[in-house]
């Protein structure tokens, strides 16, 4: 082919398109996008568009019947694929189409590569770091739940949620496939404004493909930055969804999520039962101590009462004794005391005839002389 000065040359349209196509053929590339507006032509070629999931840019694509047959992928709208090929302008319409030579599901290999890239990026930023994980508060009451009301998830969750007076608010959201992302983001935003203690995001099991939404970067970041602790019950694949990794706590099933939020209450009930037993035992101990003390008191009291009685008897005896010994009383009764030479006369031997005998009586002394002694 001759060297031509393109800027000077005036091309016929067909010539120009041919020239462009030569250049375009060199722009071989892999493109990734979501399949939309798909139709099969009468010839069996497949016409579809690939849409950029971020900004919605669209690329018209064609895959020839033969290539389509070989690639083994059955296209469907909404499917995310990677197409490899080069663009071409179709002269009759002037329209640019990406001629895909091969297409593959943006799953497995590519999906994994993309997943790994994003995982590393978010990991570097510390989105998954353990330090920023919050524990589930104890005794939570208000729970926000985001899940699909279709399927067994919500029933599994409710059946395993113990009766501890939880106030559960549920937002029904699509959870499968790429289109679920927007739903999930809207639900997260709604719950951000609500007064909840914890948020639970759940989905049932499914293929890696159907888990795509939970590897979405924006969703993952939203979960990491959510104002209250987030529990993810997204299911465990070999590669954990990024959203689950960003959540504060990740469990594998809705049942496990329900057990988790019930856990602190459950433990409290056990503790209460134990404390109740301890309290009963302590009370029994106290009753025993009390009865011991009463026994002790009874003994002390009766001992003291006996002591008092003894003192009383002692005083009474002494009083009687004093009465008996009171010389005044003796004298008043008519007894008298005789003294001879200053000595009490107790026998005839104490007296002598002619001696003075002083007789003490109750009101004085009678002085006499001894005349006679019989003895």
């Amino acid at each position, binding site marked *: 082919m001759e060297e031509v000065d393109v800027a000077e040359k005036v091309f016929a349209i067909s010539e120009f398109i041919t020239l462009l196509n030569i250049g375009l053929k060199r722009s071989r590339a892999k493109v990734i996008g979501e399949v939309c507006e798909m139709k099969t032509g009468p010839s069996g070629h497949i016409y579809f568009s690939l849409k950029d999931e971020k900004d919605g840019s669209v690329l018209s694509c064609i895959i020839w019947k033969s290539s389509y047959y070989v690639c083994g992928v059955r296209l469907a709208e909404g499917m995310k694929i990677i197409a490899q090929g080069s663009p071409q302008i179709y002269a009759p319409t002037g329209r640019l189409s990406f001629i895909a030579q091969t297409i593959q599901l943006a799953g497995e290999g590519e999906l994994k590569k993309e997943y790994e890239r994003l995982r590393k990026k978010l990991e570097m930023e510390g989105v998954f770091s353990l330090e920023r994980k919050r524990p589930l508060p104890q005794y939570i009451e208000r729970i926000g739940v985001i899940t699909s009301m279709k399927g067994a998830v919500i029933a599994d969750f409710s059946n395993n949620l113990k009766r501890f007076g939880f106030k559960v608010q549920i937002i029904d959201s699509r959870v499968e496939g790429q289109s679920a992302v927007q739903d999930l983001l809207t639900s997260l935003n709604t719950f951000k404004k609500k007064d909840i203690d914890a948020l639970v995001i759940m989905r049932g099991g499914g293929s890696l493909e159907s888990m795509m939404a939970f590897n979405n970067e924006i969703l993952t970041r939203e979960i990491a930055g959510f104002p209250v602790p987030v529990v993810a019950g997204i299911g465990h694949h070999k590669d954990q969804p990024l959203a689950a990794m960003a959540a504060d706590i990740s469990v594998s099933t809705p049942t496990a999520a329900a057990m988790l939020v019930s856990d602190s209450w459950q433990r409290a009930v056990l503790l209460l039962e134990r404390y109740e037993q301890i309290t009963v035992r302590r009370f029994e101990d106290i009753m025993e101590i*009390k009865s011991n003390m009463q026994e002790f008191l009874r003994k002390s009291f009766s001992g003291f009462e006996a002591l008092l009685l003894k003192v009383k008897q002692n005083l009474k005896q*002494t*009083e009687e004794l*004093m009465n008996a*010994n*009171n010389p005044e009383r003796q004298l008043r009764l008519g007894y008298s*005391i005789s003294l001879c030479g200053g000595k*009490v006369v107790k026998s005839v031997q104490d007296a002598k005839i002619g001696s003075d005998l002083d007789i003490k009586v109750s009101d004085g002394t009678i002085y006499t002389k001894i005349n006679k002694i019989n003895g």
Partner: protein
Amino acid sequence: MAKEKQNLNKSLKELGEITSWFDNQKEVDVEEGLKKVKEAVRIIKESKERLKEVENEFEEIKKEIDLEGNDY
């Protein structure tokens, strides 16, 4: 209270001494005997008063303990 309790004790001891004085007396010393009797009567009277106080106090304590007992 401990001091007064000792007083009652002391009084009983004194009374004991007086009674043994009478027991051991061979000669009747009317004046001394009268003194001892008067002393004994005074001590007995005081002791009875003190005993009454102690009894009252004891009753109070018993009542208090009983009230606490009902609190259980």
